[in-house]
């Protein structure tokens, strides 16, 4: 008889019209690292929400240590020793590390905090599991990797022994990822049981003992990682074979499309520039990538480039025309397409229908309006054409409210819109963020197709696989500056990592 610490047996959770979990069984052994793999909308998060008491399943039972338990709310889950590191950290930026760890279960005597005990417990845990943190540093001052260690300590401080990691590596550098993998192994060795939600097959292969795969709400199977391959995992997840490497010919760069000279952007948070003296160019028919860890000025730079934010100095030339001070509308209509970083914040009006979103930058063109009245038929036709060409799936076709669509299809809609618009330059910021491998493969192919059609492409990405696979040239941004330019064919992940963490920098020559 296996020693299962948590068993979720035959869980079925329905939403009206959708079966989010259809008879799913997940058994977590004591002391194992169990990966949960699945595309967007496969039901991973619903399953975890059931485990956390956020949803009550229609069918199925949950057992802890072989005994059936009822989890009606997150407090029940905490009482059972279940803890979770969320993808987006739940930390108070202006509190210290220690305060964040004890937040919610503060030790107190007569209503006064007794932090000394807490400090000791935290430091003991920190030493035991080799989770180095400075208990008195403010969260806003420490690195993302350290913030994650704080989240892990939070779970340990509450004596949780079932730890759920929700896509923990999305925000880390390669070096930090290695470190996290080691920490996870240590935790498992100490008897903690870990559920590890991820899209990244490499990490599963490296760290997990077993892996359960969900697809479209159904349980596909559980495999021993030692006896499987990446290819097998991905075909189980997607239901077909997926290519990892992007097929592409050698780039044939032509004329310069975008030229950026000495661009600076003032920071909103501190007195230094958040983007400092950035210069480079992008030619037609090549993919230039700006790599870097999140928060090193990429967002601000793209903001300045597209006009969403103010530029403080420098010059931007698009197809030979100085567009530094032009409006967003002008840039939109004169050769710039932009797949924004945050599809909900910038890319879409979520409460608009799909068709209305498709004409977001074009509604004023004669194709879509006459005398100020929107041509609804044209809008419908255009939207149907794009959704067909780019395989955007939605419940009610063009009339679907975008909010109800899955993240992948929302992103595909943006990609379709931006690629179809008249443009010379495509700025793609994290174009595959949060998407599953099938959608990533598709979007990558489209981007390469764009390149081969002679468009200039500026890719900004945090995903190193994407950076390495897709780009023809890589610029690394660190603290608002371009610190190095490397060739993806000759560089290694380790070298990139050194640039990204500021450990290495080139003395950059002037932009060509």
């Amino acid at each position, binding site marked *: 008889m296996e020693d299962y610490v948590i068993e979720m047996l035959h869980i079925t959770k329905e939403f*009206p019209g959708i079966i989010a979990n259809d008879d799913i069984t997940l058994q977590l052994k004591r002391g194992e690292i169990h990966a949960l793999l699945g595309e967007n909308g496969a039901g991973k998060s619903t399953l975890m929400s059931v485990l956390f008491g956020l949803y009550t399943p229609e069918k199925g039972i949950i057992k802890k240590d072989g005994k059936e338990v009822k989890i009606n709310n997150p407090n029940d889950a905490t009482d059972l020793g279940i803890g979770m590191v969320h993808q987006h950290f739940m930390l108070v930026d202006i509190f210290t590390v220690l305060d964040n760890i004890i937040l919610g279960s503060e030790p107190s005597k007569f209503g006064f905090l007794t932090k000394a005990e807490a400090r000791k417990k935290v430091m003991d845990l920190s030493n035991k599991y080799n989770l180095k943190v400075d208990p008195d540093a403010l969260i806003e001052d420490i690195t993302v990797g350290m913030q994650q260690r704080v989240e892990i300590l939070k779970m340990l401080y509450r004596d949780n022994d079932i730890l759920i990691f929700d896509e923990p590596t999305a925000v880390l550098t390669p070096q930090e990822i290695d470190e996290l993998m080691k920490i996870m192994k240590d935790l498992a060795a100490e008897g903690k049981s870990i559920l590890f939600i991820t899209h990244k097959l490499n990490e599963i292969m490296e760290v997990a003992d077993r892996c359960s795969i969900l697809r479209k709400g159904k349980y596909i199977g559980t495999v021993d990682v030692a006896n499987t391959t990446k290819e097998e995992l991905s075909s189980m997840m997607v239901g077909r074979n997926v290519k990892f490497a992007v097929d592409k010919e050698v780039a044939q760069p032509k004329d310069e499309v975008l030229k950026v000279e000495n661009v600076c952007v003032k920071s909103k948070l501190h007195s230094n520039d958040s983007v400092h003296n950035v210069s480079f160019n992008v030619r037609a028919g090549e993919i230039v990538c700006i790599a870097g860890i999140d928060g090193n000025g990429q967002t601000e730079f793209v903001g300045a480039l597209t006009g969403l934010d103010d530029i403080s100095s420098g010059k931007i030339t698009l197809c030979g025309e100085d567009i530094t001070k032009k409006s*967003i509308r002008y840039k939109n209509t004169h050769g710039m397409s932009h797949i924004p970083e945050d599809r909900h914040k910038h890319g879409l009006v979520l409460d608009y229908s799909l068709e209305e979103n498709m004409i977001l930058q074009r509604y004023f063109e004669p194709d879509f309006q006459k005398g*100020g009245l929107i041509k*609804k038929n044209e809008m419908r036709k255009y939207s149907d054409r794009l959704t067909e060409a780019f395989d955007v799936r939605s419940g009610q076709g063009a009339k679907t409210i975008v909010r109800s669509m899955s993240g992948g299809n929302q992103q595909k809609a943006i990609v379709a819109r931006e690629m179809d618009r008249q443009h010379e330059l495509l700025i793609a910021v994290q174009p595959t963020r949060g998407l599953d491998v099938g959608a990533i493969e598709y979007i990558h192919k489209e981007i390469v197709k764009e390149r081969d059609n002679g468009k200039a492409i500026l890719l900004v990405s945090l995903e190193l696989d994407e950076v390495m696979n897709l780009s023809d040239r890589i610029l690394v941004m660190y603290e608002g500056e371009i610190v190095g330019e490397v060739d993806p064919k000759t560089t290694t992940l380790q070298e990139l990592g050194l640039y990204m963490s500021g450990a290495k920098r080139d003395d950059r020559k002037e932009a060509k």
Partner: protein
Amino acid sequence: MEKTSFFKRPAVQTLLASVLCAILGIILGYIILCFMNAEHAGEGMAAILTNFFKYRIASTNTLMKYMGSFLVKSVPVILCAEAILFAYKAGLFNIGVAGQYTVGIIAALYTSLALGWHWSLCLLATIVAGAVWGFIAGCFKAFFNVNEVIAGIMLNWIGLYICNIILGGEKCMNQSKSETFEISDLNPAGLLPGFLQDVFGGNQYMTIAIPITIIIAIVILVVLNKTTFGYELKATGHNKEAAKYSGMNAKRNIILTLVISGAIAGMAAGLYYLTGVEHFKISSSVPGMGFNGIAVAFLGGLHPIGAIIAGLFVEYITLGGQYLNTNYYNPQVADLMISIIIYLCGFVLFFRTILNRPGKVKVNANAEPNKTAKKAEEKEV
């Protein structure tokens, strides 16, 4: 393509929620009547609900005359509601409608009484006055990022005091009655032209204000749903950042929205005061019309046509208060009931959510999971 069931359609749900509000308001009103005087509560409620229809026995003519007055008095609150919902669709909460309405009163009465203008110019003046008031709030919002609610409230009071000063003067105010002169005495040309007065029992206050109100509601409906301008406004209202990303001119739209909203509010005053049915008295508080408009806009489900229906309902109940037997009840009970309904309007969204609960009410199985669940999912995927 899935068909959504009748009860799950947003429009039907909004309607149901609004009707629920109204019914609850009436029930609570009845309970209050019971507390004040239980014996006559049923009778009192009947009086409010029967309202001017009690004249149906007397003669159709009288009934229609009262019906006319009812319609005339509904005009300003409906238009204020239209002004509010128009701005609301663009993501602006124009609480300044009250002030824009007030400067509309100044323009209406000063131009007609003191200047003796023709009604068309008077009406134009009210529109311009309201628009200017909206423009000021809009500029503050667009250029200095001053919240439109703050600017609106300030401008409400500024408008009120200017109104007291200007209309309190000898040219406009009958000092012995301490209310403004009759337009029909000083400047008959300043009165709006009549409309179907014969049908409504010779009601002299029945004017073109009625059809204009309906036309405005339809125009707003068309602008919001069919035009590029409406498309921009709603996009800005739903997601300002996305509107900016797509190159829309946010500043221009903010100002334009408040100008139009203000113009409608100013016109509401014009279409009311230029009928001669109402006079202005020196007041120490901002006219409640603009605030009632907020409630009407929400009760009407933020729909231009819904606002007409909601406005008629609110005005009907208000009028009903006058038919209460004053031996037993204070006529302000009607105001109290309206306040309760208005208060409940805040719950329209709440009622909608309840109607929408997937688990509790098994209405249909085809709808999408509700938004919050969706959001939680998105976050975690």
